[in-house]
């Protein structure tokens, strides 16, 4: 930290001297326009790392490599030398090992997965008969939220939506008459959405989830340490409100479907 600060001030000093020489240069006028009179181009240059991350992720390049390259670029353009960079990188990784603590839960999840976690869940969900598509989505999202709160994060789209929830909802939609192609597509989309809603807004209800661990450890390295259980508490209203929205949203979906069938 200290080292980089020294480096930083050295660089800005270098810049100030070069600035006084070129003060009357017209291109320097543009430079002032963009970076202010202090002329701290280097300070803004460190945002290059953000650019690397954004572009790398957007282009779907290898994620591990993109993150490390972004770190390298950021450090080098802010004047941190290579060995110091390795030091910061290594220390940062070791200090943040708690983010990966969720690996400890994998043996348990693996064993119950082998012994039919999916089959038992399918049995539970199969009890949903004589329901409208919207009701099926309601119940699935509730199940997903509760499961997330208990740290079970299965690949919902692959394991439940495509093989189970979508066919059930399609069948339920056909009770009052054939579905149009658009309606069938909408049911598929809604089925996938109901997994994402439950997954996203309830996963922070589990203290051991990687996102809660990432939040607490990032806040610690940013100098504002927080408790993991506090994150869980703050997530409760989000999970509840999201579920209420889903109930209303699915209710209108059913209504629209029913109206189109009555015509």
């Amino acid at each position: 930290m200290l080292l980089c600060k020294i480096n930083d001030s050295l660089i800005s000093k270098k810049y100030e001297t070069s600035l006084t020489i070129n003060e009357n240069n017209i291109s320097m006028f543009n430079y002032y326009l963009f970076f202010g009179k202090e002329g701290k181009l280097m300070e803004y240059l460190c945002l290059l790392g953000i650019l690397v991350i954004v572009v790398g992720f957007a282009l779907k390049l290898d994620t591990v490599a993109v993150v490390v390259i972004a770190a390298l670029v950021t450090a080098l353009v802010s004047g941190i030398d290579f060995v110091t960079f390795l030091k910061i990188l290594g220390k940062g990784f070791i200090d943040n090992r708690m983010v990966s603590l969720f690996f400890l839960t994998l043996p348990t999840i693996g064993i119950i997965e082998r012994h039919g976690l999916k089959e038992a869940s399918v049995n539970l969900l199969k009890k949903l008969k004589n329901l409208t598509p919207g009701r099926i989505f309601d119940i699935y999202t509730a199940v997903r939220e509760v499961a997330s709160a208990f740290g079970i994060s299965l690949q919902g789209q692959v394991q439940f939506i495509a093989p189970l929830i979508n066919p059930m909802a399609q069948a339920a939609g056909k009770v009052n008459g054939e579905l149009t192609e658009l309606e069938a597509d909408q049911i598929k989309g809604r089925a996938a959405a109901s997994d994402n809603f439950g997954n996203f807004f309830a996963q922070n209800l589990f203290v051991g989830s990687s996102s809660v661990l990432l939040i607490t450890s990032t806040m610690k390295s940013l100098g504002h340490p927080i408790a993991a259980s506090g994150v869980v508490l703050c997530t409760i209203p989000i999970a509840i409100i999201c579920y209420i929205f889903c109930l209303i949203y699915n209710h209108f979906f059913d209504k629209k479907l029913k109206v189109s069938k009555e015509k």
Partner: protein
Amino acid sequence: MGSIINNIFHTVSNFLGSLGALIGRFGEIIWYPFNFLFSGFAAWWSHLNSFITPELVNNLLLVCFVIIGLFFLAAAIESVSDRTNPVRWGTGLFWLLFAVLFSVGQWLPNEINGACLLVIALLSLLKQVRVGQIKQLPKKVADQTVSRIGNWLFLPSILLAVLALLIAQFTNLGGQVGIGIAAALSLIVAMALTRSNVKVAYEDTQRMVRSVGSAGILPQLLATLGVVFTASGVGQATSKAISGLFPVGNHLLGVILYCVAMAVFTAVMGNAFAAFAVITAGIGIPFVVAQGGSPVVVAALGMTAGYCGTLMTPMAANFNTLPVALMEMKNPLGVIKQQFPIAICMLIVHIILMYFLAF
């Protein structure tokens, strides 16, 4: 007449009063030992808790990390012995380096740890890391167990979550060691319930670690990136750049800026974890937390505000594009279209909640 009523009233109230006193007395007598027990328990508990020193917690955490290192070692061994994988040596080295970082990293010089990470990135960049073949789970075992124990199969994972939360809340061990202890106990319960031996546990551990793969290690790498960003002054630079456009100090504006930026950056990158470190350092801290916002509320809601962005972007392929392919949907943006209204509503809810809960 009045005096009679008065008398009756007096008698009744007297009676009720003494009855109440009696019940009160009785209650006290009944309650006393419990009360004693309870306060005794509380005293005993806090006495026990006083043994949990920060050093003990640190040592327990170290044990957890060494165990994770052993998981990675298992993944390394199994990756190398998977002959169907053309890049099995690269994949094995990838996991071996993580095993080293987790189990002995704290005793190595940080330069070496950093170099290990560079090698890992290089392996990943050169496509030398592949999951390889993972054995299909036997359907028979699953069916047999489910028909034998039914919904009791959910017990280990419920135990895992509840124990972790209880330990975090009621002991000095903290949430992190809590996860370790809860994981160990729930593993024992799961093994007993499914009558699995250590070999099955080993098999499932390496299978899960390998199939989670580099996606599992990504959050920690992103947190590390956050450290490098902080050291390089990215936070200050971003907040300076943004404070040129927006005034600092307005609570509502700060909250809107942070939540919307989380959603937008997440949508562009397709990953809320990556956006979190950057946007929280650059906007969340200077514009909301430094203005008096509660860090825990800001951080917790900031992350889920980012998820609103995930719901709206084709960049989040696992969530929004994969289902399109799986269900052969006509509209490639069909999932996002269904999610859009809820995502916008939830983003507004996040802004409102953060504004009222954080300040």
